[in-house]
């Protein structure tokens, strides 16, 4: 998937013009539904906090849990493949498809396969891939990135879906009814499910103590992809593992409530290996691909690894005042909203994602919502600090020499009151020369970057300090006069 994180400002500006009224208008509704769903817990706060503890423990014990999961998955009869990066993972899967003479695969929604760009690699190698989650199916046909992690095509106008389906999947009667459009997709994909020989799905939770992998979905496309074909490939990013089945199910409770305001989604399927020999359906081989793709690097940073707690519920998106204005495209990659703001910089490096951890009000709405206990604002500040000091783990270089010299001088000057006062007097005429509605808007040269997203108010004729001295003078003159009288 093409990385557009460096075009954040441009895309955001464009998206702002589109004014996603449904995001703004719907926000209250989404919030109320989510709160109602959480209120079905006897103690919602305790349930959310327990989710955070599970994820914190999982990340603390990550290597041991992965080993335990692998051992049990193997003894259940699954195969396990470890991939260092995107290329290793997708090349391995392509190899499996080729060995088996696979013409096409059906896919369940899986963010990690989008992250490793699996579809492109498969297609390049002559293996047709069908995204089968309705939203993913639509955006795949359109060739766009997900707008929202839960509703990837939620922003696509129904007219556009109609035209798309008429062109690409042979929709006979033009209709604007989402139900009929959905039905057309059902009919089209049903044939794919029927004859598919390889299904590729993600993993919502992996369970160390039993080697179980678990998928949560509403449509049934993942169950089809795990029932119909002879080969099942389950791709998981390595942080998905939790200690016990009870932990997994508690997280599923939280996931469904936070994600779609359901107590439980329509289907939660748990695999413990391939089908038994006397079963008529289900995969003859189940292959789990564990993807690192930068995570063992991120894990070296004790604070940054907190982002690996994420369970991809997407609640932070609708909760975010910035996301509600600009929607999902500006974040420029697989993950959007606050989730993307904490994950994309880690996976892609801080250098290429500068705007992502700065495009925030630091209001903390995401943090207050998160069932995994992620401290998003804390992470944004951590990334900013690392970006200034330079960091090999989080992949950012020190700022340019000029910038460093400037800030050293700046620090020296602003911590000395004489320098400050003199400096203010010195720059005032320059700053006040071109005020635009009382604001300095644009400056060329060295400071251009700073003004790209900031305005500087024009400066008062006298500083408080100047006025204070004058007042003191006036007062003492007044007192002297009084005394004389």
């Amino acid at each position, binding site marked *: 998937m093409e990385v557009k994180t460096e075009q954040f400002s441009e895309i955001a500006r464009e998206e702002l013009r589109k004014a996603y009224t449904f995001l703004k208008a*719907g926000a209250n509704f989404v919030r109320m539904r989510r709160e109602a769903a959480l209120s079905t*817990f*006897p103690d919602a706060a305790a349930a959310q906090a*327990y989710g955070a*503890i599970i994820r914190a*423990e999982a990340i*603390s*014990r*990550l*290597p041991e849990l992965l080993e335990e999961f692998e051992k049990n998955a193997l003894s*259940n009869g699954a195969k396990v493949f470890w991939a260092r990066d995107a290329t290793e993972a997708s090349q391995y899967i392509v190899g499996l498809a080729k060995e088996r003479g696979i013409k096409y695969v059906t896919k369940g929604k899986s963010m990690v396969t989008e992250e490793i760009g699996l579809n492109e690699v498969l297609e390049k190698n002559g293996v047709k891939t069908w995204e*089968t989650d*309705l*939203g993913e199916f*639509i955006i795949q046909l359109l060739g766009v990135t997900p707008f929202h992690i839960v509703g*990837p095509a*939620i922003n696509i*106008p129904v007219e556009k879906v109609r035209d798309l389906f008429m062109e690409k999947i042979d929709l006979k009667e033009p209709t604007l009814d*989402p*139900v009929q*459009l*959905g*039905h057309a997709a*059902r009919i089209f994909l049903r044939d794919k*499910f*029927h004859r598919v020989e390889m299904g590729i799905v993600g993993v919502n939770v992996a369970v160390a103590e039993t080697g*179980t992998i678990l998928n949560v979905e*509403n*449509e*049934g*496309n993942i*169950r*089809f992809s*795990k*029932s119909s074909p002879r080969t099942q490939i389950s791709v998981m990013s390595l942080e998905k593992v939790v200690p016990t089945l009870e932990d997994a*199910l*508690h997280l599923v*409770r939280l996931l469904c409530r936070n994600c779609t305001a*359901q*107590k*439980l989604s*329509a*289907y*939660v*399927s*748990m*695999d*413990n290996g391939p*089908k038994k020999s*006397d*079963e*008529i*359906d289900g995969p003859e081989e189940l292959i789990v691909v*564990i993807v*690192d793709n930068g995570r*063992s690097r991120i*894990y*070296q940073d*004790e604070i940054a*690894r907190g982002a690996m707690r994420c369970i991809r519920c997407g609640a932070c998106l609708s909760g975010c005042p910035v996301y509600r204005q600009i929607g999902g495209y500006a974040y420029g990659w697989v993950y959007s909203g606050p989730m993307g703001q904490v994950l994309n910089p880690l996976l892609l490096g801080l250098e290429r994602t500068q705007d992502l951890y700065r495009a925030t009000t630091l209001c903390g709405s995401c943090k207050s919502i998160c069932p995994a206990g992620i401290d998003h604002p804390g992470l944004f500040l951590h990334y900013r600090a690392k970006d200034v000091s330079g960091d090999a783990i989080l992949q950012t270089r020190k700022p340019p020499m000029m910038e460093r010299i400037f800030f050293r001088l700046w620090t020296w000057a602003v911590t000395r009151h004489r320098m400050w006062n003199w400096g203010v007097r010195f720059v005032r005429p320059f700053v006040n020369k071109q005020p635009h509605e009382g604001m300095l808007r644009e400056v060329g040269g060295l400071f251009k970057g700073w003004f790209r997203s900031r305005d500087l108010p024009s400066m008062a004729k006298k500083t408080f300090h100047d006025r204070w001295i004058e007042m003191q003078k006036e007062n003492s003159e007044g007192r002297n006069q009084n005394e004389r009288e």
Partner: protein
Amino acid sequence: MKQSARDEILSKLKAAPRKPIPSRPGRPVLREISLTPGELIESFSKNLSQEGGIVHRVKDRREALEKLSQIAKAEGLKKVMVSTDDVIASLNLSAWGKENDLRVITSQDFDSRDSFKDAVFEEVDAGITGADFAVAESGTLGLIHDKDQARLTSLAPILHVAIVPVERMVGVYEQVIEKIFRGKKNLPSQFCFITGPSMTGDIRGVPFKGMHGPRKIIVILVGE
């Protein structure tokens, strides 16, 4: 020798600075764990109806068959795929089919995956299964998939009818897990929780049932 990806990843993770494992509070309380059998059924029915499922209650197996006949008539069923699990086996559905003039087939009538798939995808009007559990907390069915419970029977047909003895009702998921997994060597290849019909809201947030799986799910609870 070049280190394997597995060893490289694990050793990198292990070499990272360790953080203490946070201590755990007690598990959050679950309301359904202390319900009476009657309350469990009530809660199950309420939760499943909310997700668009239909619940019928019958006294015994004879009434279950009667209810099934009514459903077959109302839905216009001509050919059904039924599982061969213990609940369904005890109902003798092939005899019931003859009486009601519909064809009843099972996965065991097929000798290959492909022919079974042809039937379950294209030929039948409904899938009829038993269920191993009913979970009150969310109106959920639990199905253990094995040779008697093919996965596609409850998934591919547009209608899913599940027949569940009330003794199989539990409060919460943990009770199911306890029974399937604890101390078991040979785990089922797949275990599935089903809550209502297949659904989506992916086009403009308009929700509808029957995206890829069943559009309708009917649960017949057997027993008092």
